[in-house]
């Protein structure tokens, strides 16, 4: 009963936030497209018509065609599934591991903190794309491996944010009060500290989705991520880079799709942050 009313309150506050609702609607639409995208696409996204390269947007091809004469609209639709899953899964990996590791480091302090954060520093010292390539060398090719590699690479960012927040939250007397009540450390971390630092984690995670999509593109560009001719937004963006002046539509539409996704997650995350904070709730 208690729980339900809390959820209801969160939803009530979220539904009043127009930006968050817009974001949610866009995400729902994107999710639907991800599921049925292939079947509503007007053309086969992988069919190449070399007689119709670089067709500007027109009635037949509303987003135009690319350098190989493939319909961009169909490719954007079909790419939704890969890009969306890549973004969400990669962020989930780095978020989960980063939060746990960062919280441990911040809460335990001392040697645990020292060891964890030095490993994180080592990961940060190597350029992330290079590190991702190293991981892929170990894991092998393919989009699923690319997602794991990208997820692993951004762990330090989350770990650092969480550690910092935990360190400052730990100073609060309610954490000591929780210890006085005889709570276990795990209860204190997950029930008392993490809910209080959720806002900074959520904001970082929504931004992280865009980075993950772009990183996948970079790996795809090097031939490590999604394999041609499969459609993926970042990959489409990367491959048509050289036609930016003579056929800008080849970049604009996949670019717009990424922007829209990131924007939607950001707006939802922003609203979620306010809704989860009892003080902001009405």
């Amino acid at each position, binding site marked *: 009963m*208690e729980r339900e*009313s*809390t959820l209801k309150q969160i939803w009530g506050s979220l539904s009043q936030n127009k930006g968050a609702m817009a974001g949610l609607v866009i995400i729902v639409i994107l999710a639907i497209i991800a599921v049925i995208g292939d079947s509503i696409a007007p053309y086969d996204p992988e069919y190449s018509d070399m007689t119709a390269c670089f067709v500007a947007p027109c009635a037949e091809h509303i987003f135009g065609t690319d350098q190989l004469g493939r319909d961009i609209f169909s490719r954007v639709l079909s790419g939704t599934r890969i890009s969306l899953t890549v973004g969400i899964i990669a962020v989930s990996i780095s978020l989960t591991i980063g939060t746990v590791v960062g919280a441990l480091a911040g809460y335990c*302090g*001392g040697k645990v903190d020292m060891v964890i954060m030095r490993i994180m520093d080592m990961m940060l010292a190597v350029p992330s794309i290079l590190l991702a390539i190293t991981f892929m060398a170990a894991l092998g090719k393919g989009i699923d491996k690319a997602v794991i590699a990208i997820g692993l690479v951004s762990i330090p960012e989350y770990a650092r944010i969480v550690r910092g927040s935990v360190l400052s939250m730990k100073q*609060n*007397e*309610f954490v*000591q*009060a*929780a*210890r*006085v*009540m*005889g*709570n*276990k450390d795990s*209860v204190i971390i997950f*029930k*008392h500290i993490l*809910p*209080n630092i959720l806002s900074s984690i959520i904001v970082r995670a929504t931004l992280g989705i865009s980075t993950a999509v772009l990183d996948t593109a970079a790996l795809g560009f090097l031939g490590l991520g999604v394999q041609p001719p499969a459609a993926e937004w970042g990959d489409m963006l990367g491959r048509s880079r050289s036609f930016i002046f003579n056929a800008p539509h080849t970049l604009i539409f996949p670019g717009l799709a990424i922007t829209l996704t990131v924007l939607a997650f950001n707006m939802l995350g922003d609203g979620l942050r306010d809704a*989860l*904070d*009892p*003080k902001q709730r009405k």
Partner: protein
Amino acid sequence: MLEIKNLSVGFQQKKGTVNAVRDVSFNVGDDEIVAIVGESGSGKSVSSLAVMGLLADNAKIDGEILLNGENLLLKNEKEFQEVRGNKISMIFQEPMTSLNPTMRVGDQICEAILTHEKISKREAMGRAVELLCSVGIPAPDKRVKDFPHQMSGGMRQRVMIAMALACRPKILIADEPTTALDVTIQAQIMKLIQDLHVSYNMAVILITHDLGVVAEVADRVCVMYCGQIVENALVADLYDNPKHPYTKGLLESIPRIDEDKERLYMIDGVVPSPQNLPEGCAFAPRCPDCMEICKKSRPALVESEGRMLRCFLYHSVCEGEQK
């Protein structure tokens, strides 16, 4: 019930060890309110945190803390969690930050109960409502669903007390429970602690620097200076006839409404730094009755007329030397 024997706490730092508490011994009886009084840095809070086992890792603790004959200092972290909240509980100075802002107060009290007792969530919630009622919160069945920010400072302190009482502890440590509250609320909270002390039949260790509060509620007072107990006496004795020069100074410096004074009395000098304590009695440099021996050696805590004193003035060997 609680016996503290020769407790010393030192904090290891780069420049060496800082001794925050030196050789502190006192007892707390079953239904006593014992006040620990002293200036900032005199070791009051450190002693209480040592009893709760909540000192930082760099603390070095010596001595014994016996709860019903069991030495708490020999317990490991897991065994200590059983004691905390269950047998000994604590409330803090700052009610504004001692409740979790993201949890409903009812849930926080329930959590305190469920940590130590195996009962259903529903029963725990019922107990939480009763507890809020017993600490004097109006409409407790509605208030359990409030978040801390929806309450005033005084109410939060009441919730904090309710949480501390959740498992009917034998001892409640109150670390300056009224310092952050305004005067009218202070009186209410002190009255509440006194009432609960009787109805819950528990001992209270009251840490404070407010001698007015002490006079009203405490049975016995330990006066601390520089990490040591300098006087331990019954409240009436201490106020009627303070013996240690430091206690005299403290009582002297309370402004009185029936006296007309230009300046308030104050003890000369400053508290010495714990890294750099004087060779003799820690209070010697500020003491109006300082003798030669006070500068050379440190007095022991001795019994004198039903109280404990740490001062050469009351040592039988030095009686002839008194000014």
